[in-house]
Structures are given as structure tokens and as C-alpha cells.
């Protein structure tokens, strides 16, 4: 049935329908033969075909509108009232207009034939409409596959009607009666299956109760008034006896259906409220559990929320706005263009009508001056606050198109749902933050691990040279690097460097410069030469904004000479004869400028070593260590401690410096790595001295 109906083109069906009804009309008026069996047979055949065609056509129209059961019931009521009035007054009005009109019923002239046929056609359409409405009601909220009973009922109603025409003699009357009884049984069976009542809310159930009583009464009245003995019945019977029979069966169906509907509704009333509440709770719980599973991905969660919001409130579109830096940002939009959502947002929030709402509020867009700019005809808006810790973080907005507006129970549904959505979004954000924090901490762990592996595990030991180094990492890896290279038996290279930036990126650059100095120190002896090469490599490999400060030195043990160059790094300090000299040869940081500029500005220093000389190299983590008043530890304090301990062992000196720095900055977090390396030229020191006292 549905298949057939879907195949028929609506324009074509209208043409066929018109042709059928017109031919029925012409046939009745121009070929009317009184008491001819064949005339009536052909007549009824035309009526039946036209009726089927009309029913299909109406079905198509009604399907397109997709009315709710309450609408259908209301329409049936109006039509019934109309039938009632027509049956009561038609005879009187026609008699008033045309003298003795009703007495010519069995012997009509042309005028009477036309009026009768029109009268008939009105009921023809009404009957088809009622039939289709009943069918829609029957199938509403029911498994569409189970239409056997309904079709069987239609077939038997048809058979009853047709047999009324052919089996008129008393001895064959039983055939007609049998079909009639079967039809009535099927009508009763079909009427009991009213499943859609359970799905409507209490308010609608109450109005339905009242409506069904009125309609039931009208059906009964119409049924008793349309017997074959009064004017109305006679007109129909004269035109088509089988149609009259069918019309009465439809009225009977209506009467039975509405009496059942009345009682069913009555029984549903006490539980209606409970049903409403339960249905809402169950659906909310289902949705809530869905929200919980999506809490891991905020973007996905937002999309699920808008998706469910449209379902919960049967809205046409929905979106979420979040407050971000004082602005409202749309983070998910469902079934609506961003531009439209933006416009509606402006109306809702800039006018201030939805700024401080405690719960879901329903607004009408009719007052929106720029409504015409929307690409769809949005009408009613439901705005729900999304809260966390009693603060409104954003809004969930649902909107309906055209004249559909949100009602009180929609509001309750949206409000409940938006509460759940708030909780889910809050959880999702917290989770994201803690995951991010954990990720950062892991990342820093990795960076510290890289740095630990890059730096020398212990201080090296050389003839005539004692070395002590201390390294204290900052929480966010600061990028300090130092190293020693045994170039030959008599030559020792050393380097100290500070990579710009912090964390894992600084750690990776450290790894790169370790590689660079490891290999360059084997190929080139001159500190200046090494730094020039290092600059050349780093200029092309580092980002523009990254650079490295470095100081590279070479000690020739045999010649007792020290050479070093400084590329943007802290100066070297030489302690000799109770005095501290700061050496700051010219030099630009590595990776900052091109080869020529770099070479032209890079100096190399040479120092003839004397017994007891201390060479101190360090990073700015020492001099820039801060106390609680944000004062720097500074060069002065640093030099003073060095001088005070100049005659001590290298380990003692580093220990003293670190002790003082730690003491100074005990009330302030250490933000940068601290590196301190002291090399003492000490001819009394041989391989024999044991390396102890490291911090």
C-alpha cells in the first residue's frame, strides 16, 4: 500500500482524480437511467475507483503535513460537526430554496441531479478524509509492518458496501450481514489498539478526554441521523447505495474508535503525570550516561551535547557558547549556520535579556530587529546557562523554526539536560587540564633526563690541573651545558654554554651543541676557530629566536698556557695573587649573526698560567639567583666569596659558592640552571690526588 502510494506522482494523481470525479459527475447527470441495474453497477464501480484514488491523494497530502494525533482528532471533530449540521439542515434549506425539493428525490430533474451529485461529492471527500485520518491515527506510534488487520477491515467494509447493492433480496441478505458482522468485529479489534495515547503529556490527555466525548456524541448522532429513511440517507443511497453503506460504516468506526479512545484516555489520566516524569527521567539518564563516556574529548562532548539538546527539546537547531576572555565563543553548532547563531547570540546577549538567567529561559525572536538577516525562519529560542561553581561559563541554546514555540515541558527537559551538560563539560575541562599538567611534567622529566646524560658524569683528572664542577638543574630545564675534552696528553679543552629558552626544546639544542663541540674539539685546536665553526652550524640549524652563549677554552699543560674565546657568555674570572680579574673578550652569541660579522667581533685571549691560578667559568644562574626581595646575587658577592676561598681546594671553593647562593636564594624559586666550573693550575697536583668532596 505504501509502496504503491509512493510511486504515484502527485500531479498525475490529481489529474486522474479530477477526470474520475468529472466523469462520475457527467455520467450521473447525462446518462441517468432510473431503476437500471447496469446503470447502478457501472455507477458504483466509478464511485469505488474514484474513492480509492481520492483516498490515496488525501493520504499523500496528510503525510506531507505530518499532523500529530491531537491535530487529527481535532480535525475529525470539526468534520463531524459539519456533517451534523449538514444532515440536520440540508433538507430544510433546499426546500426553502427550491419548492418541494425533497419530494422529487426519487424522480429528479437536471437541477436536482446536479445538486444531489454535489451533495454526494461533499460527503465523498469527507468520508475519504475521515478514512485517511483514522488510518493515520491507527498507525501512529505503531509498528508500520503490522497493517494486516487494518487492510482486512477495509476489505470487509468494502465487501459489505458492495454486497449491499447486489444481494438485495431477503434470501441473500445474510451474505451482506455476514460481511457486516465481520467488519464490526474488525473495527472493534482495530479500535482497541490505541498506542499513541501513552506518548502525549498530561495536558494534552485532558483536552483529548473532552474532545473524545464530544466527537463520540457527534458520531452517534450522525450515525442515527443518516439512516436510509431520512433525506440525507436517501440522497446518498440514490446516488450510490454502496457508498451510503460505506459512509455509515466509517461513522460506526468513528463511534467505536472514539468510545474506546475516551476510556483509554480516562484510564491513562491518573498515571499521566507519573508517565511524563518517568519518561523524562529515563531519557535524561540515558543521555547522561552518554555524556559521561564522551568526557575525554571536549570537542566531541560539545558536539554530543548539541546533538542531544536538539533531541531532548525537539528543537531544529542548537549550539553552545562559552565565555572566553569576556567574549562569547561558539564552540559547537548543530543544524545551524555559524552566522545565524552569531546573529541570534547578539540579540540574546547584547540586549541583555539573557545575561543573568538562573535557569532555562524561552525568548521569542519576533522582537529581533535583524530577524530578516537570518537564513532560516527561526522563531522560538530556549537559552540555558551552563554553570560551574555557581558561575555562568556559557550557554546552551536551542531554537525552533517557523511558528513552533517552546512550551513549559520543553523548558523543563532542556533545563534538566543543561544541568547534566554543565557537569560533563566541567569534568571534561578539569580532566583536560590535569592531563596537560601531567604531560608537561613528563616532558620536563624527559628534558632533565636528557640533560643529565649530556653533562659529564664526573670531573676529569689531569696532571697539574684540578677541576671541580657543580650543576643544579632548575625545575624547567634551563639549558646549561658544560664539558671537558682530552684532546691529547698535554691539551685539555673545556666548554660552558647556555641555550636560550627552557624545557624540552632547550634540552634538544643542548644535545646538538654537545655533538658539535665533541667533534669540533677533535678537529680544531683554536677556541676561536671552534666557536666560528659552531656559529656557522647553529646559525643555519637554530630557529631565528634561539641562540646559544658559549665560552670555549684550551689549556696547554706543557706550555702552561690558557687560550679562550667567549661567544656571548658570562665572562671568565681569574683568581691570582689574591685578586680577581674578569676577562670579557668581545664575542657575539652563537646563532645570532653571520660568519663574517661573528669572526670580525670574536677575540681570543691568552693567559700564561701561574701556580695557584683559579679559572672560574659559570652561567648566569649564579649571578642572577634571587632572594625574596628579587635582588640578584650579583657579581660582587660572587667575586668576594671566590677571593675569600682562593687558596682552598677547587672543591672547597665550589662548595662555598653554592652554599652562599643557596642561602641567599632560599626564599625564592630557582628559575634557571646553575653551573659553576673551577679549574686550578696546581703543579703539586698529580694523578694521585683523590677526587673527593664533590657536591
Amino acid at each position, binding site marked *: 500500500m505504501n509502496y504503491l502510494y509512493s510511486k504515484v506522482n502527485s500531479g498525475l494523481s490529481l489529474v486522474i482524480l479530477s477526470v474520475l470525479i468529472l466523469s462520475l459527475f457527467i455520467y450521473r447527470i447525462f446518462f441517468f437511467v432510473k431503476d437500471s441495474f447496469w446503470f447502478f453497477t457501472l455507477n458504483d464501480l466509478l464511485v469505488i475507483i474514484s474513492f480509492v484514488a481520492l483516498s490515496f491523494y488525501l493520504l499523500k497530502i496528510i503525510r506531507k503535513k505530518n499532523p500529530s494525533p491531537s491535530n487529527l482528532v481535532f480535525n475529525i471533530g470539526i468534520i463531524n460537526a459539519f456533517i451534523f449540521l449538514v444532515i440536520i439542515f440540508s433538507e430544510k434549506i433546499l426546500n426553502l430554496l427550491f419548492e418541494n425539493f425533497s419530494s422529487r428525490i426519487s424522480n429528479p430533474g437536471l437541477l436536482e441531479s446536479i445538486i444531489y451529485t454535489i451533495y454526494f461529492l461533499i460527503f465523498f471527500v469527507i468520508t475519504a478524509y475521515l478514512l485517511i485520518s483514522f488510518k493515520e491515527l491507527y498507525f501512529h506510534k505503531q509498528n508500520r509492518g503490522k497493517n494486516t488487520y487494518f487492510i482486512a477491515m477495509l476489505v470487509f467494509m468494502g465487501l459489505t458496501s458492495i454486497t449491499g447493492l447486489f444481494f438485495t433480496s431477503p434470501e441473500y441478505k445474510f451474505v451482506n450481514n455476514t460481511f457486516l458482522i465481520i467488519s464490526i468485529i474488525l473495527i472493534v479489534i482495530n479500535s482497541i489498539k490505541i498506542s499513541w495515547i501513552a506518548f502525549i503529556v498530561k495536558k494534552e490527555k485532558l483536552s483529548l478526554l473532552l474532545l473524545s466525548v464530544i466527537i463520540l456524541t457527534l458520531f452517534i448522532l450522525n450515525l442515527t441521523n443518516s439512516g436510509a429513511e431520512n433525506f440525507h440517507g436517501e440522497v446518498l443511497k440514490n446516488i450510490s447505495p454502496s457508498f451510503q453503506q460505506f459512509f455509515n460504516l466509517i461513522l460506526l468506526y468513528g463511534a467505536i474508535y472514539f468510545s474506546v479512545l475516551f476510556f483509554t484516555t480516562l484510564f491513562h489520566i491518573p498515571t499521566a503525570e507519573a508517565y511524563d516524569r518517568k519518561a523524562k527521567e529515563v531519557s535524561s539518564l540515558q543521555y547522561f550516561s552518554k555524556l559521561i563516556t564522551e568526557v575525554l574529548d571536549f570537542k566531541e562532548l560539545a558536539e554530543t551535547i548539541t546533538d542531544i539538546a536538539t533531541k531532548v527539546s525537539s528543537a531544529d537547531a542548537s549550539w553552545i557558547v562559552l565565555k572566553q576572555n569576556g567574549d562569547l565563543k561558539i564552540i559547537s553548532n548543530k543544524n545551524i549556520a555559524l552566522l545565524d547563531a552569531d546573529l541570534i547570540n547578539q540579540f540574546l546577549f547584547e540586549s541583555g535579556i539573557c545575561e543573568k538567567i538562573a535557569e532555562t529561559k524561552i525568548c521569542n525572536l519576533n522582537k529581533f530587529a535583524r530577524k530578516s538577516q537570518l537564513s532560516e525562519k527561526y522563531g522560538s529560542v530556549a537559552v540555558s546557562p551552563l554553570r560551574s561553581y555557581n558561575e555562568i561559563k556559557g550557554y546552551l541554546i536551542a531554537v525552533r523554526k517557523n511558528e513552533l514555540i517552546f512550551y513549559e515541558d520543553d523548558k523543563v527537559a532542556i533545563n534538566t539536560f543543561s544541568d547534566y551538560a554543565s557537569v560533563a563539560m566541567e569534568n571534561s575541562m578539569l580532566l583536560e587540564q590535569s592531563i596537560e599538567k601531567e604531560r608537561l611534567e613528563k616532558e620536563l622529566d624527559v628534558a632533565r633526563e636528557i640533560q643529565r646524560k649530556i653533562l659529564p658524569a664526573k670531573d676529569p683528572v689531569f696532571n697539574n690541573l684540578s677541576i671541580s664542577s657543580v650543576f643544579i638543574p632548575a625545575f624547567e630545564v634551563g639549558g646549561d651545558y658544560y664539558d671537558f675534552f682530552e684532546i691529547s696528553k698535554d691539551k685539555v679543552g673545556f666548554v660552558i654554554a647556555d641555550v636560550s629558552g627552557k624545557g624540552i626544546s632547550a634540552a634538544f639544542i643542548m644535545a646538538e651543541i654537545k655533538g658539535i663541540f665533541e667533534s669540533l674539539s677533535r678537529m680544531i685546536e683554536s677556541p676561536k676557530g671552534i666557536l666560528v665553526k659552531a656559529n656557522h652550524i647553529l646559525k643555519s640549524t637554530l630557529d631565528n*629566536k634561539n*641562540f646559544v652563549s658559549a665560552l670555549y677554552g684550551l689549556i696547554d699543560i706543557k706550555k702552561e698556557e690558557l687560550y679562550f674565546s667567549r661567544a656571548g657568555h658570562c665572562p671568565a674570572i681569574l683568581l691570582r695573587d689574591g685578586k680577581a680579574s674578569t676577562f670579557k673578550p*668581545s664575542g657575539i652569541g652563537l646563532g645570532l649573526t653571520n660568519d663574517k660579522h661573528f669572526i670580525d*667581533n670574536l677575540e681570543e685571549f691568552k693567559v700564561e698560567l701561574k701556580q695557584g691560578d683559579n679559572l672560574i667559568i659559570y652561567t648566569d644562574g649564579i649571578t642572577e639567583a634571587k632572594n625574596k626581595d628579587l635582588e640578584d646575587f650579583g657579581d660582587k658577592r660572587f667575586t668576594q666569596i671566590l677571593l675569600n676561598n682562593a687558596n682552598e681546594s677547587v672543591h672547597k671553593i665550589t662548595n662555598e659558592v653554592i652554599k652562599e647562593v643557596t642561602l641567599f636564594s632560599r626564599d625564592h624559586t630557582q628559575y634557571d640552571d646553575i653551573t659553576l666550573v673551577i679549574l686550578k693550575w696546581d703543579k703539586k697536583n698529580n694523578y694521585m690526588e683523590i677526587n673527593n668532596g664533590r657536591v
Partner: protein
Amino acid sequence: MAEFSTSIKDQGDVSIINLKGYLDAHTAPILENNFVDLIDKNRFQIVVGFKDLAYISSAGLGVFMAYIEKIRDSRGDIKLAGMSDKVYNIFDLLGFPLLYEIFKSEDEAIQKFTESK
């Protein structure tokens, strides 16, 4: 960490960015955005005022390096002015005076731009 903020004013073809507070890895993006905005507006003659800057870290120094090539390629420059001794020492250590023109006052820096025209 302590606060950092910038303010920008235009004086003829020269834009002056004044820095205030602590410029480090966390606050550097604020200054980066200032440079990006000026470059977008084709304003390449930039003076950076340091008189209210309390501290600059290596990441802060990196911001100047990030845009200098682009600005100089567009016949512009970044000139630095009004540094305290402490801030100047940090710049000096890295050899920045060899890379940038550094002036005592903003006016001198602006003057230099107008003269070179």
C-alpha cells in the same frame, strides 16, 4: 612570575613599543604579537623602550632576533633605547650592541630614524 605588559604609540613613521615588567619565556609571546601586528601594518621602523623593563631572560632576547631579519629586509630596523645598566649588561654580554643600535633615550632612537631618511 611577575607581570609584563607593553604599550605601543606611533610617532610619524616610527612605532615605539614600551616594555614594562619581566620579559621571559612565559611573557615573550606578548611582545612577539606586537611585532607581528606592526609587521602586518607595514610599520618597520620600530623603537623599543626599555626604561620600565625590570628583567629580560634569554627567551626575551630571542624575540628581537625572531623578527629582525624580516624587518631589515623591509628596509626597517629595531632600535633599542632607555635600558637600565642591568638590562644593558645582559644585552652587552651576548654581543647585542654589535647587532642592534642601542640609544640612551627614545628620542635619540627616533631621531636616528628620521635622519637616515
